[in-house]
């Protein structure tokens, strides 16, 4: 079945079952409006109306068929009581719509009583659910003020000063950036920006931005944000070789691995690039006995042990 808008049987039939009651209720809408609302070209609409004209009830005499009338740029449909109401939403459609609505409403700063909030509540009402009780979507945490400043920076193409907690380096940093885009991915909000200090594009997690200040300096956004390339380790970053127990195999999926090899003892030997020591320390702390450092530069080979010792110092 074709998925094109005009396409397959199902798509065309479902469009008709939605379009007919709407046209009936409007009493002579503009064909251009029908086309816009139901995403059809005037030619497709004409073809659809020709089919409708042949639909009705037994004995299928002219008086038992749906009546279609076109006059000037308007269209009327009559005697279509049998298709008087649109079809109920399928669970797929309900999930898609309510999830989208709940997602946008969950963004910090959204107005729960705006048009979207009202629309979602009405729609949930006919589905028999209280949407706030049964469906919750969290696209990522952010302070309302910070997020608002980031969006302004993006839309007004103004530079921002960020006070940022770099998790990988475990340090507070100050930097000026050209904010390109705020993005929600995998349950976190990110700012994609050019960092003047790093002189490169970087991705900042919004909930780690301690504060943002809108500057007067403007910038020109790059043309295509679709081809954003995430920061990748470069050749000069140190490499560490680890042996992972089967229980730690999730690490291979979670982080970019430069090589993976199965050992005779069933463990996986992997090579990873380490961009910052705290990152490796956290990984080794979380894995504990499930990981063993095989080789690595002198500063890193003890990263897990050292970090564990520093934490233990808090538990005398």
């Amino acid at each position: 079945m074709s998925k094109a808008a005009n396409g397959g049987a199902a798509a065309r039939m479902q469009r008709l079952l939605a379009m007919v009651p709407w046209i009936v209720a409007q009493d002579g809408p503009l064909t251009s409006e029908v086309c816009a609302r139901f995403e059809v070209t005037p030619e497709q609409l004409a073809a659809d109306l020709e089919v409708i004209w042949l639909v009705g009830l037994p004995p299928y005499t002219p008086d038992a068929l749906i009546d279609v009338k076109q006059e000037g740029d308007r269209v009327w449909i009559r005697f279509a009581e049998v298709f008087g109401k649109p079809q109920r939403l399928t669970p797929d459609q309900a999930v898609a719509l309510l999830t989208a609505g709940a997602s946008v409403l969950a963004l910090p700063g959204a107005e729960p009583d705006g048009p979207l909030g009202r629309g979602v509540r009405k729609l949930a009402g006919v589905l028999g659910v209280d949407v706030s009780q049964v469906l919750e979507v969290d696209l990522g945490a952010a302070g309302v003020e910070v997020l608002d400043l980031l969006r302004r920076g993006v839309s007004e193409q103004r530079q921002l000063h960020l006070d940022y907690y770099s998790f990988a380096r475990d340090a507070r940093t100050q930097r000026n950036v050209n904010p390109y885009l705020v993005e929600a991915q995998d349950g976190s909000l990110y700012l994609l920006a050019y960092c003047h200090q790093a002189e490169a594009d970087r991705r900042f997690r919004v909930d780690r931005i301690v504060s943002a200040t809108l500057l007067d300096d403007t910038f020109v956004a790059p043309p295509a944000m679709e081809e954003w390339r995430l920061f990748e380790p470069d050749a000069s970053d140190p490499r560490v070789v680890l042996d992972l127990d089967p229980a730690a195999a999730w690490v291979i999926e979670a982080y970019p691995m430069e090589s993976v090899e199965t050992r005779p003892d069933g463990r996986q030997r992997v090579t990873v690039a380490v961009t910052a020591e705290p990152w490796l320390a956290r990984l080794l702390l979380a894995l504990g006995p499930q990981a063993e450092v095989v080789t690595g530069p002198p500063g890193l080979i003890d990263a897990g042990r050292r970090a564990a010792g520093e934490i233990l110092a808090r538990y005398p």
Partner: protein
Amino acid sequence: MSSPKLERLLNLTALLLNASLPVSAEQIQTALDYPDDVVAFRRAFERDKDELRAMGIPLRLASVPGKLPPVDGYRIPPEEYALRDPGLTIDELGALHLAASAVQVEGLSATAGLLKLGGLVAAGASDIGVRVAPLPADPNLACLFAAVASRTPVTMRYGDQDRTIDPYRLEFLRGRWYLTGYDHFREAERNFRLGRIQGTVVPTDGPAFLAPRAPLQGRAEGPWELGDDEPIVARLRIGGPPAQWALQHFGPDRIVEVAEDGSVVIDLPVNHRSAFRSFVLSFLDHAEILSPVELREDLILWLRGIT
């Protein structure tokens, strides 16, 4: 599809929607444009029925009254077919359209749903100011949502255990879908990760369950709340650079104290101890478990194993 077939499907739908009594296959063959040959008719009719069902049209099977031997007939009950009009205003419909364009669930289209609600209309705003990567789909998502909405208990296999669940709520959190529900096997409310459900969720024929007895606990704030361990409250001090993050991230009901040095003390409910340990360790030496003693000792033991 050619128009004659579309025409036939529409007429079939109209016939069955309009029928107050089940209509037999024979009557359908006579009334509509089907082949006269019995085998060819059966084949075409079966395909048509499948197509209607795939569109979510409720095709019901029942005996035609007054026939001996009994004959099966078909109907589409209008009350099951039709959408109750939510009465959306044009700005509400536009806002839903904008939201559905901005946030997509992989593999699920909101367009057909929007058409039923009155079509695609433009919203007041042009975008939501955030680019949202499509949310991952899960094969059980729609079925579970239908069960949540109709309060239908479901059976599913989870953690190598067959369970009956009263599904209360679906959540999308940190990039994953979760189900909260009453687990009849554990006899307690539990959170489940959809991605870890083994196989397909099956709705039961049983009666609808009642609303949750107690209001649901707040949504799970982290993986440390998504386990099967004995629930316990852990007190944690977070200092240094992440303190500011913790202050923003956790609500006032979690925060016990903000100390003079800027460090933050929080209480967290834990029922997944190893996930909690990983969370604490991610703060490196900026965090300390204050209580209970057993979690402190568990962490100390873990760290000694590393040094």
